[in-house]
């Protein structure tokens, strides 16, 4: 989404935005989370009543980081460590793993859509048989 509003919430304060911004022409937004605050950084994307909330797990560099969290989200955490940056609304499947469309895993969208349409057509054919 181009020129969508971005609000970033730090793990310790989910009510006040830590940083706000606007996506660029390609719908991207880059930010650097504060490594001293490990946990789920929430990124809210919003434009004209459309949008999403993406949680980006960040493993802290401090020794107090929650061990289980760091273990569970190794891939996501390395993606989102301060050296790299979050790009909500873009690819990066590791970071978007817990957001986005609730879709059946690993099935191309057109296959599931074709299956749905066939279901509707099948229903139509079933009821079009007429009364026996």
């Amino acid at each position, binding site marked *: 989404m181009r*020129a969508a*509003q971005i*609000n970033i919430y730090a793990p310790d304060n989910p009510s*006040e*935005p830590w940083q*706000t911004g*606007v996506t660029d022409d390609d719908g991207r937004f880059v930010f650097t989370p504060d490594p001293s605050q490990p946990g789920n950084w929430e990124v*809210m994307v*919003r*434009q*004209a*009543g*459309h*949008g*999403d*909330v993406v949680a980006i797990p960040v493993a802290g560099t401090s020794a107090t980081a929650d061990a289980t969290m760091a273990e569970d989200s190794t891939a996501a955490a390395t993606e989102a460590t301060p050296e790299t940056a979050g790009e909500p609304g873009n690819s990066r499947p590791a970071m978007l793993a817990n957001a*986005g*469309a*609730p*879709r*059946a895993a690993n099935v191309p*969208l057109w296959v*599931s*859509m074709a299956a*749905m*349409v066939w279901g*509707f*057509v099948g*229903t*139509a*054919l079933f*009821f*079009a048989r007429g009364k026996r």
Partner: protein
Amino acid sequence: MHIPDGIVSAQVCAAGYALTGLATWYSLRQINRKPDPTAEIPKASLLTAAFFVASSIYIPVPPTSVHLILNGLLGVVLGYFAFPAILIGLFFQALVIGHGGLTTLGVNATMMGIPALLAYHIFQGRNTIGKVLPASVRTGVFAFLGGALGLGIAALIFLALVILNIPADVDANAERAAILTLSIAHIPLMMVEGIFTAMLVLFLQRVKPELLEG
């Protein structure tokens, strides 16, 4: 134009489900009063498929883009079957394509389904106030009005819902401007869907006029 999860408050979601329940009950009761309630299911099922796919067809309207809704068309062609058809279509759109959401299913069904029922009554108006028009253009004109106004009313409900639910943290002016831009972009879409509805209805009238009697 679907409202995704997390945009409107829980109260609005609950009210949406309540209205959807009421409208579904009313529509099913009207369907059940027909001599053969199952007779129109094939037509309804095929148009549900069209509705389901239509939201993936985007039309660029600079500076934004809109997708087909077809709720007015479903209302005109299906009558009271339109509401359950839209409800089922929206359910699968939320599940498969990720348009809308399950918590906002009721809100979206109300937003698109009730204007569809209004579109049906607008189209039925061709037999009453439409009598002033010559018979040759009456059906086309009222089908256009049903298709266009069904979508237009839905777009107005969308506008009202999202403008009243702007979260406190975002820049309200920018968000309002974006919402207005998106809503204005639906005016050309109203024309497109109105013309499409009129073409479909005129085609059905020529090849299978009994399909429009329901």
